[in-house]
């Protein structure tokens, strides 16, 4: 029988499962939809400056780097599993890879992006700290494909890494087990219309904030690129809300939001920061640790309140309207930047592939796979099955990996 395991999804869970299996001499085929590995983790920032705040982002990205060097792992980027057919005790899977149009010679210098004449660009670097850091071209935007003549990027590239002749590829692999780890999507902050997302440039989602922090090391306002002086962080945007269909608590938002708050204060101790929340659910951290930290900072306030609206004042500042903790009055406070801490939704549990494999979805869209399905060789890992942070996804993925290799021992 085949000695390969298919891992669908190159996020923290998928990467950890893959690494666990490769370490046990089991060949892995990893299929990732986007142009680089890391999943959500690559969009997020490391939250430590001097001391580690245990967010786990580096863990996921280090595994991504390792996996790319691993001879036992075959990684398909910009790829999808188009079908999985049961064959005896395994599956025949068909993987379709889209062309990247950039070869491995790319050094990531970014000259092609500069040269690209398309408004909004047609050639991109992987976002965040994604691995590998090789650019890719979006065929639907690129003038070379649309009009058939532009080669601005190709002539700007110092390493001649642009290859317009790159073609889509289709391969089939025989695998014995399939691990489904398609991960999550952040809730779009603009789904909650009252908080000014999409209307005001300086109302950003926590994912955007992390992206800015990851890129620059400090937070700046999108409108003018200047560091903010007054920041509001609003928790539970889209989470714990029946209206958004995200009734559950997304689990990691308190952890990450409190940690980026601490990071912002570390970089700028003068920053005024107001932290609005309903319940403070910092993961794997004593319940009053963040409160004690906030108490020790003169410029930080913790406010137990869910703001009602964000509007713009006459001087352009953002006004957050919120009831006081005891619901006795409503106050408006001015800020330069408002961060909406968004929750998550499972991604891909209702895809055709999931259906083919017999993976179900619950009412929130989380993937459900019972032990019977695992006996048939289909496993679900990571936050597609329930809300979790990177650390927990990694731990559970190791456990899943052990069950995969356990099944293999059983069948051999």
């Amino acid at each position, binding site marked *: 029988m085949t000695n390969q395991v298919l891992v669908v999804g190159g996020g923290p869970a998928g990467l950890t499962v893959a690494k666990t299996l490769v370490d046990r001499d089991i060949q892995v085929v990893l299929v990732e939809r986007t142009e680089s590995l890391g999943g959500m983790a690559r969009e997020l920032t490391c939250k430590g*400056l001097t001391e580690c705040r*245990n967010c786990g982002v580096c863990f996921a990205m280090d595994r991504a780097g390792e996996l790319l060097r691993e001879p036992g792992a075959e990684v398909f980027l910009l790829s999808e599993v188009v079908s999985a057919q049961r064959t005896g005790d395994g599956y025949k899977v068909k993987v379709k890879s889209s062309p990247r149009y950039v070869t491995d010679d790319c050094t990531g210098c970014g000259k092609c992006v500069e040269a690209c004449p398309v408004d909004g660009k047609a050639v991109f670097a992987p976002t965040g*700290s994604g691995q590998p850091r090789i650019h890719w071209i979006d065929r639907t935007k690129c003038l070379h494909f649309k009009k058939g003549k532009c080669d601005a990027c190709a002539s700007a590239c110092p390493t001649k890494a642009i290859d317009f002749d790159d073609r889509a590829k289709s391969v089939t692999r025989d695998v014995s087990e399939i691990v489904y780890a398609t991960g999550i999507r952040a809730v779009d902050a603009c789904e909650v219309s009252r908080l000014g997302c999409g209307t005001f440039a300086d109302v950003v989602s926590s994912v955007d904030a992390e992206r800015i922090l990851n890129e620059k090391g400090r937070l700046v306002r999108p409108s003018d690129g200047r560091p903010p002086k007054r920041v509001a962080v609003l928790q539970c945007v889209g989470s714990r809300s029946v209206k958004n269909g995200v009734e559950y608590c997304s689990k990691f938002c308190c952890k990450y939001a409190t940690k980026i708050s601490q990071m912002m204060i570390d970089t700028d101790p003068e920053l005024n920061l107001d932290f609005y929340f309903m319940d403070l659910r910092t993961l794997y951290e004593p319940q009053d640790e963040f409160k004690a930290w906030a108490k020790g900072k003169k410029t930080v306030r913790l406010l137990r309140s869910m703001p009602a609206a964000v509007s713009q004042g006459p001087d352009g500042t953002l006004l957050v309207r919120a009831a006081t903790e005891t619901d006795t009055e409503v106050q408006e406070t001015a800020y330069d930047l408002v961060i909406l801490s968004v929750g998550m939704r499972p991604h891909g549990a209702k895809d055709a592939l999931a259906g083919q494999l017999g993976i179900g979805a619950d009412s929130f869209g989380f993937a459900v796979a019972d032990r019977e399905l695992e006996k048939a060789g289909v496993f679900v890992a990571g936050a597609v099955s329930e809300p979790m942070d990177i650390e927990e996804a990694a731990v559970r993925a190791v456990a899943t990996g052990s069950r995969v290799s356990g099944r293999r021992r059983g069948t051999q």
Partner: protein
Amino acid sequence: MTDRRPKVVGFCCERHGMDAAVLAARSGRQYDASVRVIQVPCSGRVDGLHILKAFEDGADAVFVIGCLEKNCYYDTGSIEGRKRVEYVKGMLAELGIEKERVEMFNAASTNAWAFPEAASKMVEVAKRLGPLDMGGDTR
């Protein structure tokens, strides 16, 4: 002759320190070519003596870069590294040498900005204070 390039030496840990430098390079980040990196297995390997010897041998600024504290590959190495840097800072300050010339930095493998920022900061310090054997007041 004061326009000579500043000589900056960085002791860089093989783990997240170097990972951050590599990620920075691959992300197209730039820093001054006068920064020379010496690879050590862990920032805890750096001895205060190595830093002082670097100054003796002509460095204008020295920095150590390691993993984040509490996330060191070798558990406690970067905490030790920082202590060594602090000790050398104290010695230099007692001798009237600007203690800003030596600095400890921490980086995570996903921080593309961390290494270039550390390197540029030290180049800036070295430029501002001038070469060790010329600029600066003797106090």
